[in-house]
């Protein structure tokens, strides 16, 4: 069926062209022989081909173009004919009107009319007026549109525009404008009417065809925009109101959208700016289905481009209160178009925001207003389900970030978080990540507690569980990613002033503590370190602030930290808590706060005892404890004894013998701090090492009992190294003979039958021996010391 139609149409078009060409041929002959009568007759017959109703606009256009070319020749002929004086142009103007069929008649009339204007025998305005009036006879939309488009085409260079030769006397630019406006109005009416003609089932096809014809209508606006005489005043007083009147009154979706777009595109930005009110007032009056958001977006985009183009125009924007008007109009449009999907409304706001950011980047209050309006629109609605709308909101929220490159600015926008509230949780998080990334990218420093407060309000989607998020939906990796970014963010919160910094820390702490067990392990450490940084800073300034009333003291901070870490330990994430305790202890140590440090250690030990059950974790933990403790130098003897005692005690209680052994020999360092005034308790060092040896022996035996093979000799070698260390450090308890004994023990062990050969141990031992050898050969004090040892 459809195919048939297409084929038929081709056939009809071919017939039309054939008829046209035949008559054109006769017409040419008449033209060549200066036979006016025949020329008129055949041209009318030729034009009769345009009377067809069977062609689609597309095909009709082809026919029209061919006729157009022929009419150019005819026009030349008319021109010659009248200049020769064989027929006056007035007579000719009458003569062509004798044609019985209206369509050929009007095409001819327009053609002669063009010559008539050129001859200047009558005022251009009268001829134009007559032509545009007579064209009313064609009420068929397609034929009428093409005819009027022909009229527009032939009259274009003959309008009495300013500076045109047809202007002057009675002909003013007003007449030109009037003419074009009238033609435009009539064309638009025809175009709009097209949709109602023909069967309902072909509506879609007709709409498609109409769309193809739209440029014929829009051309008039283009002509208007090119009339020199249309200055701002005229545009304001005449052109725009008239065009808009037509646009509004035609009550047609397609036309309204296209024409609004056209107006915005063809007229200069300056005009738009000055007539913003009028233009915008038309928007709410359009049909509810018109895609007005695109129109307005275009307008705003153009205006903002205009604003950016030159700094001189900016005052104009202020003068006409462009923002207020746009904002107002958008509100009205949204109100008027009840059925507009939420995404439409939001994208309007996005456009407005973009405009604001480009034009009034200094007016944060405007930005906030836009967001506020958006919030009002969204309020009372559930969270957005529509993914497009969500995308638009993300765009809305991202725009200020991109513009200002500075979240600090965005934080001043009170409506910003309120908009975010309307996002679904997933998007909310995405947005929060975007915000954080923006901060990271620009290494923005957030420097006051208020801002931090606002910021955390924004990213609360990341900070705590939102209502109704099923936990199992979370992707592990995404979650980690998010939390890591939060962790990074915490490092960006900084203020030189300790007091403010303290406030920031408190704020952050308050927020992150709401995070729940899964988040705390990510968020607490950065907070702790941030706080410790502050502590160190305070410590550095110590001298300066002495004597004054200091609001922030390390002590206070530590107190805070203690509580924070406690939260972590209850999560439970004891290992992490333990590490943090140790970090704090170390910091406290540096601040000379013995009780605080002691407290931290206590906490660490408690954790170790109560929470750390896994043997491997225990090993790691005990080594950490030992390591930290070793460096502590503020403890008094008693405290230190207690702690070292505990540490050694725990070391010996580790599950596996090798672990025990290693922990114990590590403990030996607790008694020997290689500092100026460090503790140097050689006896207890030896005690530890001996104990380690015992444990190593036990391990050895246990291994041979259970597996029938020798245990790890490596332990012995390791202990040997410890011996050597303390030997070198001058521990009097460690003598060459003791070392000699140990070497021999190892050698025997290695040569025993049931020893399992282990190349790495062999190598380790060999290199240890080599070291001894080397020291001996080096000579000097150390060489002498090593001298007695025989390898």
């Amino acid at each position: 069926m459809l195919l048939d139609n297409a084929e038929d149409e081709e056939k009809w078009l071919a017939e039309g062209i054939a008829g046209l060409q035949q008559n054109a041929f006769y017409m040419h002959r008449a033209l060549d022989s200066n036979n006016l009568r025949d020329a008129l007759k055949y041209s009318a017959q030729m034009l009769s081909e345009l009377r067809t109703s069977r062609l689609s606009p597309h095909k009709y256009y082809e026919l029209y173009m061919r006729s157009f070319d022929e009419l150019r020749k005819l026009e030349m002929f008319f021109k010659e004919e009248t200049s020769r004086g064989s027929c006056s142009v007035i007579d000719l103007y009458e003569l062509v009107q004798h044609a019985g069929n209206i369509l050929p008649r009007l095409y001819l009339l327009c053609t002669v009319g063009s010559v008539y204007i050129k001859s200047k025998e009558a005022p251009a305005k009268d001829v134009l007026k007559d032509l545009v009036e007579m064209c009313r006879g064609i009420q068929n939309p397609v034929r009428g549109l093409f005819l009027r488009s022909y009229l527009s085409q032939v009259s274009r260079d003959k309008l009495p525009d300013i500076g045109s030769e047809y202007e002057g006397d009675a002909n003013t630019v007003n007449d030109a404008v009037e003419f074009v406006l009238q033609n435009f109005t009539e064309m638009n009416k025809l175009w709009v009417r097209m949709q109602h003609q023909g069967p309902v089932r072909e509506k879609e096809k007709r709409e498609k065809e109409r769309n193809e014809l739209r440029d014929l209508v829009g051309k008039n606006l283009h002509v208007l925009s090119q009339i020199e005489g249309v200055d701002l005043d005229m545009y304001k007083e005449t052109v725009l109101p008239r065009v808009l009147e037509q646009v509004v009154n035609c009550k047609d979706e397609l036309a309204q959208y296209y024409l609004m777009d056209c107006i915005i595109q063809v007229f200069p930005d300056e005009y738009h700016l000055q007539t913003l009110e009028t233009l915008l007032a038309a928007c709410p009056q359009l049909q509810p289905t018109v895609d007005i958001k695109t129109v307005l977006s275009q307008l705003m985009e153009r205006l903002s481009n205009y604003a950016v183009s030159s700094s001189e125009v900016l005052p104009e924007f202020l003068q006409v209160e462009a923002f207020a008007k746009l904002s107002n109009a958008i509100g009205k449009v949204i109100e008027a178009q009840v059925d507009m999907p939420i995404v439409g409304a939001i994208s309007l706001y996005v456009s407005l925001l973009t405009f604001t950011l480009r034009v009034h980047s200094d007016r944060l209050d405007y930005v906030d207003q836009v967001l506020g309006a958006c919030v009002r629109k969204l309020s009372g609605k559930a969270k957005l389900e529509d993914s497009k709308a969500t995308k638009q909101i993300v765009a809305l929220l991202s725009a200020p970030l991109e513009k200002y490159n500075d979240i600090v600015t965005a934080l001043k926008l009170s409506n910003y978080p309120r908009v975010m509230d309307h996002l679904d949780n997933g998007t909310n998080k995405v947005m929060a990540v975007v915000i954080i990334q923006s901060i990271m990218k620009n290494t923005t420093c957030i420097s006051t507690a208020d801002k931090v407060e606002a910021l955390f309000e924004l990213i609360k989607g990341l900070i705590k569980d939102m209502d109704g998020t099923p936990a199992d939906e979370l992707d592990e990796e995404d979650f980690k990613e998010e939390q890591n970014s939060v962790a990074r963010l915490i490092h960006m919160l900084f203020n030189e002033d300790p007091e403010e910094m303290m406030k920031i820390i408190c704020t952050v702490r308050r927020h992150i503590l709401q995070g729940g067990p899964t988040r705390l392990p990510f968020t607490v450490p950065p907070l702790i370190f941030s706080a410790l940084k502050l502590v160190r800073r305070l410590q550095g300034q110590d001298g300066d602030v002495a004597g004054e009333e200091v609001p922030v003291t390390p002590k206070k901070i530590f107190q805070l930290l203690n509580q924070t870490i406690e939260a972590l330990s209850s999560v439970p994430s004891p290992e992490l808590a333990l590490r943090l305790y140790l970090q704090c202890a170390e910091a406290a140590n540096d601040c000379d706060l013995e009780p605080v440090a002691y407290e931290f250690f206590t906490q660490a030990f408690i954790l170790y005892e109560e929470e750390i059950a896994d043997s491997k974790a225990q090993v790691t933990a005990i080594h950490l404890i030992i390591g930290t403790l070793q460096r502590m130098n503020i403890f008094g003897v008693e405290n230190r004894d207690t702690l070292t005692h505990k540490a050694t005690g725990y070391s010996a209680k580790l599950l596996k013998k090798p672990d025990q052994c290693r922990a114990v020999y590590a403990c030996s360092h607790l008694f020997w701090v290689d500092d100026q005034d460090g503790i140097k308790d050689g006896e207890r060092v030896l005690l530890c090492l001996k104990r380690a040896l015992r444990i190593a022996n036990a391990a050895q035996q246990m291994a041979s009992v259970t597996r029938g093979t020798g245990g790890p000799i490596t332990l012995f070698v390791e202990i040997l190294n410890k011996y050597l260390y303390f030997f070198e450090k001058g521990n009097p308890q460690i003598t060459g003979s003791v070392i000699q004994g140990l070497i021999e023990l190892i050698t025997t062990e290695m040569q025993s039958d049931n020893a399992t050969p282990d190349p790495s141990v062999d190598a380790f031992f060999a290199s240890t021996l080599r070291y001894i050898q080397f020291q001996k050969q080096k000579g000097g004090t150390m060489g002498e010391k090593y001298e007695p040892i025989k390898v």
Partner: protein
Amino acid sequence: MNFLVGAFKPPCNISITFADGRTRKQASVKKENGQTAMVPLFQSQENIVGEVCIEPVLGKKVEHNGVKIELLGQIELYFDRGNFYDFTSLVRELDVPGEIYERKTYPFEFSTVEMPYESYNGVNIRLRYILKVTISRNFVSNIVEYQDFWVRNYTPLPPINNSIKMEVGIEDCLHIEFEYSKSKYHLKDVIIGKIYFLLVRIKIKNMELEIRRRESTGSGSNTYVETETLAKYELMDGAPVRGESIPVRLFLSPYDLTPTYRNINNKFSVKYYLNLVLVDEEDRRYFKQQEITMYRLPETL
């Protein structure tokens, strides 16, 4: 053949010439055989002056009982062909009975001749003016010669010329208001007007304006009415909507019109009508006919 023709040939040639024959305007008249001929043009109250020239065929004499010239206004009804009704008859005696031997010319003059009706060639009727020269003879038939001339009478601009304005329609279907600027038009006039659509519920395809001529002849039961459509002028193409107004501008000059003739000598009338026709998509025609009065305006230089 020639001989035979010669035998019945009248013994003389008669020619009638008008005094101002060379300068006088002529009218082109369509003859019955379809050809056009140019004939001298007169109007009422004019002097018709000229001469009759009788030239006997060489070597013959014309014996006669008198020569006269008549000016006749005749109406001929085609259903009664050959039977002329003379409404005007003027006679001038040109010569007393006698003989004519050689070429002889007689001047004649009819002064301020009342010729109230215009010449007209219609479908069923003809109104003509002739000059008829008769050479009466005793035993043989009279020698007669005719000269046609054409009469057109001019009317001044009518003092009252109202527009024609009317609202017509079919209930709930089509309402239009049409307006023609005048009700009386001269022959080279232009009909200006507009059609305003008040209500359109039918799908109109096009609209045209027809000029129709109604010629009615005879009277009583013998009345013959003949209507011709002289012009079909398309005014509109496509379907208008409510509120559209379509301009009308129809030049009358291309059409072969006459003034309106009302009851000419109780024999006939010729009237003109404007017929507005709307055609819908099913080719149904809706029309409204309005009489217009045609008149002949004196031709100005």
